């Protein structure tokens, strides 16, 4: 009697344990990565965080911790890229903004601002709210304005009292839609990129045969305007443009 029970219990454990292990695996990896960082094994911490991000790409704290691990290793470029990705997912996390500011103060290239007004608008919005969240806010405003408009149309008595409010609301909604479209355009057509190589030479055209214009160092930021083969045309915050090999930069 005991033998079948033992066999049954063993079979049950063999079938259940892998499932249990699978369910706890991400937490385990997080703990392992934190331990690796604490003892200074940044390479292992980086590998573990990248493994987590591959399966769960929408968690901002994973990108932030990966960026912190790269920072510990001394790679400012990849640290900044991952911190910017974390901020894209969670713009209101103050710790991420602080880390980004720290890296920007330590990089060689001194850069402030944005190249164009569109970028300024998109960046201002992106510092507070994600594009997707903002689209819902605008949608809510759009719906409220439409609802108020409908009420005014159906009930003529409300026209006089709501007219001013409708005009103001309409202006705000239109402005918000404009800002939303700008943010979406910039994120699609002018994505941010960061230099991940130690030093990169910016050329006047898409190739080594063109004239070198200036140098950029690790963690320098830019926006990508177009791509041609292995080269990308970029614009810096101060307005300078040029071509960079795509392997030397990483898109945020």
């Amino acid at each position, binding site marked *: 009697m005991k033998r079948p029970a033992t066999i049954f219990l063993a079979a049950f454990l063999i079938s259940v344990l892998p499932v249990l292990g699978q369910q706890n695996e*991400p*937490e385990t990896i*997080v703990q392992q990565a*934190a331990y690796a*960082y604490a003892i200074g094994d940044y390479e292992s911490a980086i590998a573990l965080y990248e493994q987590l991000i591959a399966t*769960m790409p*929408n*968690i901002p*704290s*994973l990108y*932030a*911790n990966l960026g*912190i691990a790269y*920072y*510990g290793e001394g790679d400012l470029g990849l640290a900044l890229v991952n911190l910017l990705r974390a901020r894209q*997912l969670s713009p209101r*996390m103050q*710790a*991420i903004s602080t*880390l980004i500011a*720290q890296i920007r103060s330590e990089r*060689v290239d*001194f850069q402030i601002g944005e190249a164009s007004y569109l970028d300024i608008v998109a960046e201002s919005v992106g510092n507070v709210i*994600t*594009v*997707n*969240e903002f*689209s*819902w806010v605008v*949608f809510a405003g*759009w*719906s409220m*304005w*439409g*609802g108020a*408009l*409908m009420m005014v*149309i*159906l009930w003529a008595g409300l026209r006089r009292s709501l007219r001013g409010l409708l005009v103001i609301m309409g202006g705000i909604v239109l402005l918000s839609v404009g800002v939303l479209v700008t943010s979406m355009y910039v994120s699609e057509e002018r994505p941010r990129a960061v230099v991940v190589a130690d030093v990169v*030479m910016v050329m*006047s*055209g898409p190739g080594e*045969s*063109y*004239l*070198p*214009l*200036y*140098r950029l160092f690790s963690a320098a930021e830019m926006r990508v305007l177009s791509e041609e083969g292995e080269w990308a045309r970029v614009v810096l915050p101060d307005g300078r443009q040029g071509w960079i090999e795509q392997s030397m930069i990483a898109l945020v």
Partner: protein
Amino acid sequence: MRFWLITLCFVGVLIGSGMRVAAQSDDASLFPAGTDYYLQAFVEGDGVVYVGEQVVYVLRTYVRDRTGARSNIFETLPDFDGFWRSTALEPRNPPVEVVNGVQYVVLETYVLLYPLQSGTLMIAPSRLEVFETLFRDAAEFYSDPVTVEVQPLPSPAPQNFSGAVGQFRVEMTLEPAEVALGEPLTLRLTLTGEGNLEQVPAPSLRLPERWRVFENDSSARLDSNIAGLMLWSRQYEYLLVPPNAGTVQFAPLVFVYFDPFTEEYVALEGSEFTVNVFPGNDGLLSLERPSQQQAVFAPELLAVDLSATRRVAVPSWWMWMVMPLLVLIAGSVPVIRSFLRSRLIAYRSANALKRALSQLETVQDGDDYAVIEQIILGYCWDSLGYLPADCTGDLWQIISEKVSDASMLDRLQTFLRHVEAVRYAPKPMRPQIAVLVNRAVDLLKLLDKQWIKV
């Protein structure tokens, strides 16, 4: 006598300096005789240059107009594909030339170009557009295209080649020579010469280890000297902050460029500098944190919430369409309502007599005489285009404006008063209701013909 001679000489000098020198052109064979405008383009030199070497593209516009004004013409330069285009210059005092016996004012434009790649580069023709005036029609002129042979730079280039092509000079200053720890030094670097300085990156500074560098200012200027050379001057200014106290030796700066005249790479060395950095006010010898303290300032990892895996999605496109659609529907409701109302009014008006007559047919003995009055009044409102809910206002005033025969109003009022009187008369004295109905029918038929049709 001497005074007048001197005066005459002085006046002669004044007049001579104000006159433009009229030169005979050697290009008479290329110049169609009798033309008012001509465009000539060429590059200075033999047209064979190295990549990055300065090329001066000259556009000469010959204008027969005595004033030499640019107001009637518009010059369009080509795109200069394959070149980096720099400054365009126009001399203030255009010269005068005589070609085929005709005097022309020569408007010149100089464009500095730097070829970006080797090979045979073609500069497309420039265009001159002459505007229509009272004396001539509009016209267009084109220059000939210009070919430039661009040779590649000799290889291999030195490892620290800056990319500069031309002839240059380097000047460097560093001040002050003595600072206290924490105070900055100012390094000024000036590159001067004829060539593509505009495109060349700042030379890399050979600084001691861990010195912090802040780029303070940089400027670029183009000068033209007496020989007509276009000289670039670029100045860089840096603030240097030494991390430690002590005496520091600066290695000389090396600037490597290619000289197209000697066809050799030239390495220019800047000056050597020695700087004394004294300890800070409180005796501090170094600004750097010890490595143990660096670990304290290492950022902490953030807490990871693995449950937040879903990302907020953007509202679908069709959701944005819902509200405008609803507004459209709401906006169309009053329009539809108004349309239906007008159709109803028109229908009731067109069928007012028919409806009134059919109602009168149903009136029987024993019914209240007031029914007749109601039917007549209802007919009037329907014919006038009023729905029952809108029957307000003075009916008689409205009827008087809508009938062609004014006496109809009196007849109508008289009949209605008669019906009213019959209602309250004693029963034996009341006429049969059918009599009143027949009279009402006749009255309505007559009234129906009297409405003024709009």
